[in-house]
């Protein structure tokens, strides 16, 4: 129950962030989607042992958070509790990849530890960029952007309806489960028979609701496609954002910035 409430609060917090008028929010959704996608491709294109070379890329999510006035704490918390599958798979690397790599100063480290560190950094970078994309855009503009980029309207319509009815059905499920608990049932972890009955009724209600929704949509002139208000246009600042970020990604990908920085510092120190 509490994880459902937490999930709802999280959706709400991201929606709230997107509703504010910020420099990031004013950009065309297409520009943001393309940039974040390019970011993900650049992040995963690094060599599997790349650790320090990835670090400058963290400036991109930080920049998004700054431009969107999105609280970093919310994003970081969500990254930490996000699916630990990647980390679990990554944790096996130090065991299976035991080839040792020479570090400076005669130290040695297992290559698996380097690739584990790389996986962790990749995970944080890609996940936080995706969350910031949503928090800085909002669902409706995001769906419009996806539609404009050629995603089939069947899917974008689904996304709009899904985010609308998730809140409705989750609320209904919460009330049903609460009613069940008040009559002496378990609050979480129902026995299978009760679970099937509860969810079966919820499913029946959902089917009836779908019929009512369809009637309502028909009476409002629905003819196969949801209208999406188009209040966006591609401006020069969108081009600038896309090109600027891409140039930064290519620079980080092509030049090992931390290495160059370290060389400068060592020369100064010498």
């Amino acid at each position, binding site marked *: 129950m509490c994880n459902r409430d937490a999930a709802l609060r999280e959706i709400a917090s991201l929606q709230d962030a997107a509703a504010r008028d910020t420099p990031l929010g004013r950009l065309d959704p297409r520009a943001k989607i393309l940039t974040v996608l390019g970011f993900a491709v650049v992040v995963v294109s690094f*060599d599997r042992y790349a650790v320090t070379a990835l670090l400058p890329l963290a400036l991109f999510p930080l920049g998004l958070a700054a431009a969107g006035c999105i609280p970093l704490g919310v994003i970081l918390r969500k990254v930490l509790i996000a699916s630990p599958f990647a980390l679990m798979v990554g944790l096996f690397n130090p065991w299976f990849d035991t080839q040792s790599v020479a570090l400076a100063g005669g130290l040695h480290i297992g290559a698996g530890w380097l690739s584990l560190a790389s996986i962790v950094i990749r995970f944080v970078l890609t996940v936080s960029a995706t969350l910031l994309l949503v928090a800085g855009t909002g669902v409706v503009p995001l769906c419009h952007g996806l539609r404009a980029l050629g*995603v089939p309207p*069947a899917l974008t319509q*689904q996304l709009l309806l899904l985010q609308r009815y998730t809140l409705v*059905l989750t609320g209904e499920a919460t009330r049903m489960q609460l009613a069940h608990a008040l009559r002496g049932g378990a609050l979480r972890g129902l026995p299978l028979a009760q679970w*099937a009955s509860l969810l079966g009724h919820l499913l029946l209600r959902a089917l009836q609701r779908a019929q009512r929704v369809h009637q309502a949509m028909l009476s409002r002139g629905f003819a196969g496609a949801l209208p999406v208000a188009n209040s966006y246009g591609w401006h020069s600042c969108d081009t600038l954002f896309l090109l600027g970020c891409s140039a930064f990604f290519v620079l980080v990908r092509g030049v090992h910035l931390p290495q160059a920085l370290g*060389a400068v510092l060592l020369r100064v120190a010498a």
Partner: protein
Amino acid sequence: MHMADALFSPAVGATFWAASAVTLVAASRRLQSDQREDLVPLMGVLAAFVFTAQMINFTIPGTGSSGHIGGGLLLSILLGPHAAFIAIASVLTVQALFFADGGLLALGANMFNMGVCTCFVAYPLIYRPLMRHAGAKPSRQRVAWITTLATVLGLQLGALGVVVQTQLSGISSLPLGGFLLLMQPIHLAIGLVEGVATAALIVFVREARPDLFARDALPAQAAPQVRVPARWLAGFAALAVLTGGVMSWFASSHPDGLEWSIARVTGQANVADGGSRVHALLASLQAETALLPDYALPSASEPSRSEPEQPAWPTVEAGTSLAGIVGGVVTFALVLLVGLVVRRRQRLTLHVQP
């Protein structure tokens, strides 16, 4: 078992994106020609139902742990495979965007593992033939067995997909056999639990709304045939596999796959800021690092970009030289600093405009 961006190589991610995108386009074409008018709201509400159902856990008898349903087979049964695939794709997209399950690049693979495997393999090849075989009035037990079997097999395929994608990407060092032995039995257990739960739900709804299941007993597809010709699909699939194969071959023989292809396309090693001063400065710095044996260990000096033969681990060497470590630590500190500044500024702005 969402795949994550962090475990992907670009070639594998792109290949599975292509496969899922083609399926998505084909399914939505098919949907447009469908006769059912109420399908759009029905899909939306049922996708929301799956989303909600995944948040309500039931206890697994005898273990004390709990489980939830995946929903792919349930939606296929209620909506048909094409609408179900789109609904599952929307659920996965929302999970990727709002709950950080997977990521944008991994979304294609997740749609493949959890959508294609259940909607286009387990449902039409296992559930439907068996149900048709069972006749017009199958018994409860029979429905339950068939549903469980289809769920288990669909999930096994999905788990296999995760293993194959992880192996092809080569970011994880898990050996193939070990990973398979880890994933398949775990997902057999999960599949059994999910299957029993899905079966319980299907049996319940079958009794309450038998009209929804009329199509199970139909001898053949009543809907008009596929608009996207099968040979188009086959062509796209072949193209996707070819692209993936060629790209991953480059990626494995040249560890710096992206750079290599950029070099080929543009005829020079680095495209960005081709002749700008910043680039020249950085490039000269890089050259100097390699010329300063006091600072970089000889074995650890970074090979210059144009060197024809690369050592086995180019970036490990690049990242572990003294300059690389010092620079890495300083970069990390700088990134942290920027983060703190951003946070501070946000606190201030939040105070100003509550």
